[in-house]
């Protein structure tokens, strides 16, 4: 299948009193229709910003975004884009208007875009959507504060689905939920993908979450992509030292402590006016002089497996 999303040299800088904050710096990737791209990275690495720039909630600084072959980087008609691309937000407690009932929240996009003109039509569609995401009808007139996190996130998903988009950015949709609910929501999202042929960009800081539902995984560090490959390939042949550290941080329920863990030391460097050189250099156990001078570019090390590291061959004995 063709690429639904193509992103080329995308940059997003924020002006701050201390200088330019490089939130997203020269990112390139494609997402094939019907597939899921997992975007992984720690807090503040620009993954949420990337998601918001792509669906045009934020304007990019430079670069291009193609949706289904159409350049949408500077399109003025963001409103009609909303019908093609939607977002599920991270925090289901803060992202729902506390003064609106469940049916009002889900139904608002239908009214804004003039899809349903009559009240009965809206009500009918809202009921269908609530069924789709597994929300009982009796919650239609409830307010968000009366529901638990899992149900609230179902509202968020129903809201995103209401305009029948082809592409959904899932911005850490399960990170605010407890583990048992996380699985339910992830299963729901996968079922919806199978049913409707949705394309996802799944943003998370939790590799174990992304492992099961992504076709491709992209690892970000301070606004830059450090490693990108197919999901299984990434877990089988982890090449970048940062990805290795991330994997080592996944807790494994085992009695014997046989695992050799590479733990990261040091603080994340500032994303404001970053110096040239590898951004991970300050925390990298393999750092050499070269790393602090030249910014590494993404190179295809194995078939379909790109890594941005000067020393990747040396570290992995390739």
């Amino acid at each position, binding site marked *: 299948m063709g690429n639904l999303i193509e992103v080329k040299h995308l940059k997003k800088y924020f002006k701050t009193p201390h200088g330019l904050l490089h939130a997203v710096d020269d990112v390139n990737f494609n997402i094939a229709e019907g597939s899921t791209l997992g975007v992984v990275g720690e807090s503040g690495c620009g993954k949420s910003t990337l998601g918001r720039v792509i669906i045009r909630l934020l304007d990019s600084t430079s670069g291009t975004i193609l949706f289904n072959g159409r350049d949408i980087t500077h399109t003025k008609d963001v409103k009609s884009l*909303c019908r093609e691309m939607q977002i599920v937000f991270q925090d289901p407690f803060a992202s729902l208007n506390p003064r609106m009932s469940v049916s009002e929240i889900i139904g608002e996009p239908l009214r*804004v875009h003039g899809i349903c003109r009559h009240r009965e039509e809206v009500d009918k569609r809202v009921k269908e959507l609530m069924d789709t995401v597994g929300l009982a009808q009796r919650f239609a007139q409830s307010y968000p504060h009366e529901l638990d996190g899992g149900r609230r996130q179902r509202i968020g998903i129903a809201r995103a689905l209401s305009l029948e988009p082809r592409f959904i950015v899932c911005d850490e949709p399960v990170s605010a939920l407890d583990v048992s609910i996380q699985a339910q929501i992830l299963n729901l999202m996968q079922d919806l993908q199978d049913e409707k042929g949705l394309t996802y960009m799944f943003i998370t800081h939790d590799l174990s979450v992304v492992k099961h539902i992504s076709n491709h995984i992209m690892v970000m560090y301070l606004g830059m992509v450090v490693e990108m490959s197919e999901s299984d390939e990434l877990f089988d042949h982890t090449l970048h030292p940062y990805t290795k550290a991330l994997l080592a941080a996944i807790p494994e329920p085992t009695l014997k402590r046989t695992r050799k863990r590479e733990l990261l030391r040091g603080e994340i460097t500032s994303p404001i006016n970053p110096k040239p050189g590898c951004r991970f250099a300050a925390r990298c156990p393999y750092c050499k002089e070269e790393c602090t001078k030249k910014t590494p570019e993404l190179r295809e090390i194995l078939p379909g497996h790109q890594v941005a590291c000067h020393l990747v061959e040396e570290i992995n004995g390739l």
Partner: protein
Amino acid sequence: MLRYIIRRILVTIPVLIGVTLIIFTLMYFTKGDPARMILGDMATEEEVEELREEMGLNDPFLVRYGNYMLDLFHGDLGDSYVTGLPVTEEIMARLPVTMRLAVYSCALSVIIGIPVGILSAVKQYSILDNVATLLALLGITIPSFWLAMMLILVFSVNLGWLPASGLYGWQYYILPVISISAVSIATITRMTRSSMLEVIRQDYIRTARAKGQTEAKIITKHALKNALIPVITVIGIQFASGMSGAVVNEQIFAIPGIGKMMVDAIKARNYPVVQGGVLIIALLFSILNLIIDLLYAFVDPRIKTQYARKKEKHKPQELAAGGEEVSA
């Protein structure tokens, strides 16, 4: 909801009784003799004493308070020592003037304060925001009586555009309303601004953008409704303080309202008028508070559902009771 309103009205009764006790005690300990005030300096001590006896001023405190309360429960606030007219009549003649001043001032502050506050928040740190914040700071710091006198000096004395005192037409309202509402415009502007700033940063505003909602609708429908509760509280307080601000302003602009009536009555030791005036203002305060509490429910549907929930709880029990009867 109705039960809540009735309960709130019943609660005001002890509040009002407390108010009468406090004001009666205060007036009791105030220096000065109403009988002497009525008869003037030329009257002899015997004449004054005779009048004191006649007015019941020589009775012990509790007897006087008891008599007053007894009359009060019959709807009688007593007669004015100065004019001899019933206090109720005196108040009713002057209340509309004060109320009109308070309502106009309140309306003006809402009409100016809320839009300016919204614009200030939406365009934070713009020139408009900076000017508005500065003016709001001035509005809060400048004392009302000083502003009133400056307004008279500029617009009446120097420019001669507006009348300085009295109340004979709409143009007489302009200066008093401006001077009373300056503080509330400033307070409401600041409150709306800070409350909106907080709400605008919320995630659900971003959600509304993702829905494709227009910016104007996002501000009015999603943001303003959530920002309004603290603003409404402030409007209520400002309306009330507008009425008490009337005491000073009516004096300066020589407007025959409740405020001026009470100041004159205090000077003349006209106890029944002072007590009646305070009581009526306390009553208005309570009613205003009730209205504001009801407005909360209107603005915030979560509060309304709380009332509805309570009702629902009672229903199934009644049904169960009915079912038992049938089976028995």
